[in-house]
């Protein structure tokens, strides 16, 4: 076998190793319940903001990096979420949240939120002036 072949084989082996090593980075979107089975491990959860009988707490004067709210995941369970950051503006209007974080007891500790606002996309509202 030629040495060039060996190098190409090595390269193929390396790409294989890369693909194998990638597997660990993937996970499925979780619900609060499934995320709670592995406390401390990071997951992504798709949820909706839950404001029915629940309040959002954000007091920047006390701590600008702590924002507490409730979210309802795709299975319909509502859970307390602590976000370690400033409350995103117009958070109330978000239609869908993709949250990254981990469960800790009864709360979801969230370090990143991707918000989808319906208004950003639904342009089909005509503003009528007088």
């Amino acid at each position, binding site marked *: 076998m030629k040495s060039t072949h060996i190098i190409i084989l090595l390269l193929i082996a390396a790409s294989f190793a890369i693909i194998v090593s990638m597997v660990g980075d993937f996970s499925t*979107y979780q619900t609060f319940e499934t995320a709670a089975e592995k406390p401390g491990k990071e997951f992504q959860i798709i949820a909706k903001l839950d404001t029915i009988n629940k309040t959002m707490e954000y007091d920047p004067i006390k701590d600008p990096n702590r924002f507490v709210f409730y979210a309802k995941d795709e299975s319909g369970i509502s859970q307390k979420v602590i976000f370690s950051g400033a409350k995103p*503006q117009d958070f109330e209007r978000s239609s869908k949240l993709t949250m990254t974080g981990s469960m800790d007891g009864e709360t979801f500790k969230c370090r990143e939120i991707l918000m989808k*606002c319906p208004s950003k996309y639904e342009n089909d509202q005509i503003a*009528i002036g007088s």
Partner: protein
Amino acid sequence: MEFQNEHLIPGNIGHFLALLSFVASIVGAISFFISTRSKLPTNESHWYRLGRSAFTVHALSVFGVFSILFYLIFNHYFEYHYVWDHSSKALPFKYLLSCFWEGQEGSFLLWMIWHSILGLIYLRKKTQWTAPVMSVVSLAQFFLSVSLLGLYFFGEKIGSSPFALLRDVMSEAPIFQQANYLTLIQDGNGLNPLLQNYWMVIHPPVLFLGFASTLFPFAYVIAALWKNNYDNWIQPVIKWSLFGGMILGTGIMMGGAWAYESLNFGGYWAWDPVENSSLVPWLVLIAGLHTAVIYKATKYSLRSTLLFLMLSFVLVLYSTFLTRTGILGETSVHAFTGEGNYLGIYLVLFLLTFLLGGLALFFYRYKSIPDHRKEEELSSREFWMFIGSLVLMISVVQITYTTSMPVWNEIFGTKLTVVDPVEHYNSIQIWLAILVALGTALIYYLKFKKTSTAFFIKKILPPFIASAIISALIIYFQDLSSVPVAILMFCGVFTVVANAAYIAQNKKLNIKKWGGNMAHIGFGLMLIGIVLSSFNKNVISVNRLGVDFDMGKETVAENKKESRENLLLFRDIPVDMAGYSLTYEGDTVVGPDHFYSVRYIKRENDTGRITEEFILKPNAQINPKMGLVSNPDTKHYLTKDIFTYITSTVDKSKIKDTIAFKTKEVSVGDSIYFTNGVMIYRGFGQGSDKPNYQAQDGDIAVTANLDLMDLNGKTLKANPIYYIRNKRDVFNPIDTIKQFNLYLRVNKIIPERKTVEIAYKQPSSMDDYIIMKAIEFPYINILWIGIILMVLGFLLSLYKRFTSK
């Protein structure tokens, strides 16, 4: 019903031209096709001329459509849906261009314009490749023109026209029952505020020119396979690939610069799917460019060249599919979305036609593609260049695989996701970058065919040692504590040093020949810049207020870092941050934007003397549709950037006005002290130019002239007005002194004592605050310099190929 005030003529012309461009592209494609297949020279040239005329008509129609759409946007004709949807009256001229390419129709039009321009330039000189290449170009234009038709065939709407009327698109809305509906539409929907940035005026055209220029290498591949002829083929292919590599690379990095300047994810690259999907075609193009160079020099690697250059354009189509159909929805912050199901189907058809057509032709010709039987030498340049291209392709496979996750989820019904995408890509791509950089450093020291080991070692040893020393110093002083990062740093330095040394030894001042080395030096510098600015990227706005809470991190330090990246600044209360004293001094409003002034002061430790002082004005737009849209402001130093942006702010309109006015009677020369300063009453003045006062006949108006001075010695004049109208009505409007956060009014004038009574109040500064984040990017300028050198390297190579035969 007859609608009033509509401008329907330009739209009708536009419709017609779109249709004409569609028909002409079919005629062009067929004519060039027949011309290519003709055996008789008379036939061939007859069809060629027809094809050329058809393409010219097509290109002119596209220009026409483009101009008309711009004319509509420019004149704010909101009866057109596209104009209403993407623009508004208040936008400055340059952003009207951004409106143009915000939507799918406009961006496809931009793409078509570039194909047309490149096609017209290409048609100026006829070679054996012109007809087959132009058949492919015309076919691509055919597909793109379909998307602009907006016509119904057999009950199915094909394409969407940029000239569709608002009243047709939203026929349900009740206002279209009125003939004068246009008078009710005051303004358009406006442009996404994130796109209101000068980079967004220039980045899309450059990116689309890059996309357009990948079509030509693709067309050349098809032409060569079709004619089964590879003579005189590689020179134009290399030129087009160099051009495409240069433009597309520039376009991508302009996107990075835009992200750095106007988005607040804190960087120039976030491995966002939209970024990835434009990077991937570029990487494939670069792989193809290198194998093309191998083929030109040694006749090796023809098959990979064909395949790579073919894939590059197909991946451009794939990128369009990913970004325009909204399939990325959950993974991307970019605001494109589903523009209808038809678009997805149409783009898949477009993509499959070009992919499967190309692959079928490739495998049909596979056996007859010239191939070297002999193995490459292990010590040859071509072998290692080929390996380098393969590594680029591995990188492409990995990026594409992960980026396509939403597509896999759609196909297989799974719900897979990557929790930490940045870490995921970085941890894999860093090793590939190391391999590529190592190859880039060594490659010029290898000769085509065969290199003697002694020669190689003798030449490479000095730059190797020099790089080892330089990178060791950088690694030590910059504290690059991660092993792969340190290795990458070495490889980046090695790339720069080895290529610079190669220029010094072999090319001297023959600048024309510097191209390849220079692009490689640029690449090395980019790596160095990326490592320094991202590994040592430092969030300096660590908060000192508030409580800690457990973020589930391993160490206390990590917990703190996680939880305290946002800093609260009350108005006028200095806070220490990373050696600076920061003061939020209030906001100014310009149009929809709020600019928040944050003063940075650096003092000498012992004496307290100010050594440095500057103001950053990050802005935030409270957008009615999107909420707070924050644009950072950056202080640029030679060796670092300080990047500041607003994460949250108070809505001033919601602060309750609870503070009462205080009053004081003063005569000329008297002072009034307030929280952060003093004002001195200087006597009466004339007040006719006040914005809150319109003079009328018979008014008696005076102003109280006040000199204001704050604690820092900053001075300002104020002159609240007091006037009597109709001899009996007294008016004394409030004057707002924003810079002092002060409200003033003349309560009354007391002539007998020659005094006035001034009322004043200051809302508490606790009511006015911002929450901001500040990030330090060290040595980011090295990255920008690297990019510029890389582009210049491409330009030099291109220049050399055009001037030397």
